[in-house]
């Protein structure tokens, strides 16, 4: 007789076998959903928790130390605008990090692109939409180049982007000229970080966002329910919609207050950069979570060989991710340019990149690929911006500034690592 042949009677046995998939028949009560979430936390999957905790703790800390200034509308609007370049850069990096790659040159690419923008506006004198498109196109082309070296030739991305980090510093220097600075006085570009959406329009936008979100969530809930698939309880969906709406309207309300310090001046409304970031966040989230491309990005990051064998064009995914990253770096460069109204030869060098990587990681994106979300960049970027903003208010010595920033980064990473370790199951 054979070891592996078995009659049907033998296989079914005297008792009815367990039918399997009992995990998919989870209870749809609020309690069940909460239990599920706690289980996820217990299993070490903290998601956005460290970043959100970080924002809250740092917020309380600085509010206590600088009660008069930290929570003022003026400072909050400053904070948001300060965070935007870092958030956008980090959002691009998330795509690359998801693949398990790194782009050390993202910072200097934002420099090159803003140099292109500035020279086109100032030297060539083109109109702003052309200059912006050219800057983003420059980013995209650079990204394709990087992606090609990584994806087709197969050089580790750390090395490629390290070389490009050095090389592009030279390119920016060449475009801008030694010691030079190119002032960008173009009103539309300047407006991005320096002007605000009219108050009424701001409220309209906020309402649109809140309603659209609510409609989408409820539609999704209904469609899952009707197909008999796992879905969250309605109460939880409603709670989430209410929370998001509260945040959106809250921020809008704060930013709609006149925050000018001098009485004669009027300064209110959402800075243009903020809705720009919201739009980028929505698009990036959609691409990563709901499209085949996004799925393939996660697959390549998780196991590139498996992805290849599944017929995914791994090279194309790599090139595309680097293209997206560099294009977002270009947008980040434009935001930074807008803030300073100028571009200098060292734009994007220094610690720019490290802050952006730190933001993505604090937000919850893994450096080993396969785990991360677009929102990580926003949350992590806010943490980094709050640290800088708060320390600015405190006016601590330069050396402390370095040490504290490093310390917070370390702390956020430890929380994540410890949770993961506690739940460690020797997964490899």
């Amino acid at each position, binding site marked *: 007789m054979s070891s592996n042949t078995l009659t049907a009677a033998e296989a079914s046995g005297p008792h009815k076998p367990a039918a399997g998939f009992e995990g998919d028949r989870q209870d749809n009560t609020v309690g069940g959903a909460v239990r599920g979430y706690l289980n996820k936390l217990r299993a070490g999957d903290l998601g956005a928790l460290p970043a959100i905790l970080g924002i809250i703790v740092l917020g309380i800390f600085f509010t206590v130390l600088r009660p008069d200034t930290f929570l003022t509308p003026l400072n909050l609007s400053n904070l948001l605008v300060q965070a935007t370049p870092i958030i956008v850069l980090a959002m691009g990096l998330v795509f690359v990090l998801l693949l398990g790659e790194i782009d050390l040159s993202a910072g200097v690419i934002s420099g090159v692109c803003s140099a292109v923008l500035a020279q086109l506006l100032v030297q060539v004198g083109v109109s702003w939409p052309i200059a912006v498109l050219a800057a983003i196109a420059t980013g995209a082309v650079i990204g394709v180049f990087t992606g090609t070296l990584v994806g087709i030739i197969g050089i580790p991305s750390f090395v490629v982007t390290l070389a490009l980090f050095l090389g592009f510093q030279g390119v920016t220097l060449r475009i801008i000229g030694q010691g030079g600075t190119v002032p960008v006085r173009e009103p539309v570009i300047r407006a991005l970080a320096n002007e605000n959406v009219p108050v009424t329009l701001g409220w309209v936008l906020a309402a649109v966002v809140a309603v659209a979100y609510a409609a989408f969530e409820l539609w999704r809930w209904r469609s899952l329910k009707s197909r008999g698939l796992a879905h969250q309880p309605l109460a939880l969906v409603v709670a989430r919609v209410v929370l998001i709406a509260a945040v959106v309207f809250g921020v809008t309300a704060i930013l709609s207050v006149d925050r000018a310090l001098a009485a004669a001046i009027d300064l209110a409304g959402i800075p243009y950069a903020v809705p720009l970031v919201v739009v980028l966040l929505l698009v990036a989230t959609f691409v990563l979570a709901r499209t085949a491309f996004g*799925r393939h990005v996660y697959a390549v990051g998780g196991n590139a060989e498996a992805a290849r064998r599944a017929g995914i064009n791994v090279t194309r995914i790599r090139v595309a991710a680097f293209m997206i990253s560099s294009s977002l770096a270009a947008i980040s460069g434009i935001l930074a340019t807008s803030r300073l109204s100028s571009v200098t030869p060292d734009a994007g060098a220094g610690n720019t990149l490290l802050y952006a990587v730190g933001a993505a990681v604090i937000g919850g994106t893994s450096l080993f690929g396969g785990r991360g979300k677009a929102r990580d960049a926003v949350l992590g970027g806010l943490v980094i911006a709050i640290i800088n903003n708060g320390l600015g208010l405190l006016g601590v010595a330069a050396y402390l500034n370095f040490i504290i920033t490093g310390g917070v980064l370390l702390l956020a990473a430890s929380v994540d690592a410890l949770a993961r370790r506690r739940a460690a199951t020797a997964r490899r």
Partner: protein
Amino acid sequence: MSAPVESTTPPALERPTLSLRGVNKSFGAVQVLHDVHLDVYPGKVTALVGDNGAGKSTLIKSIAGIHPIDSGTVEFEGKPVQLNGPRDAARLGIEVVYQDLALADNLDVVQNMFLGRERKQGIVLDEASMEEAARDTLAKLSVRTLKSVRQLVSSLSGGQRQTVAIAKAVLWESKLVILDEPTAALGVAQTRQVLDLVRRLADTGHAVVFITHNMVDVFEVADRVAALYLGRVAADVPISDVDRTQIIELITSGRSGELGLAPDALED
């Protein structure tokens, strides 16, 4: 040169789905496949047997386009083809379950099963329909201990992973299905299901290549047996032409009576 002693001519009428002619493959200085001839017929299960390290996995990875071959020709349905990557193989209708299961640990079972061929509505993924289809396929394969099809693959047991890989391959209607030791990690009931499945695939007209070390399985499902010995095809014959002892001799020494490699081929 080495050549199998032609003991039986394949049925004259039928055109093989896949046929390899003089395929060679080396890794650096190590030649793993020597001048391989192999025909795989539709509606038939071809058992590919051979000792550990004989080159079975290398051979099927060459067919799948994972290792490009050094020389030789590959014909698919009578037409010569170039296999430069798994995408080429998939396009032709070749589906493979690899010995080193290729699953993305950070994705869940459903996501892995539909990887590379996601169902979409417009550009949006159709998660619901994929989840249903995955659950149905797995249920058919007698998977009873899996908690959820939304479980990450990293948390599966060895046999559960094996089942997911098999389920993934049979989701698609392919002309040629290759399974590299699919039952190695499976339990008794699951093995039964996979053997039935293999038979069913062949009976519905698919060509199947089935790699195993288990002789009972060979005799239960195979129509033809191909034996590899140190990278050479020692025999490629109908199952009715050989018995268990002969196959084991072919595996362990490359020859069995009239069958097998010419003695001089064994020398070089």
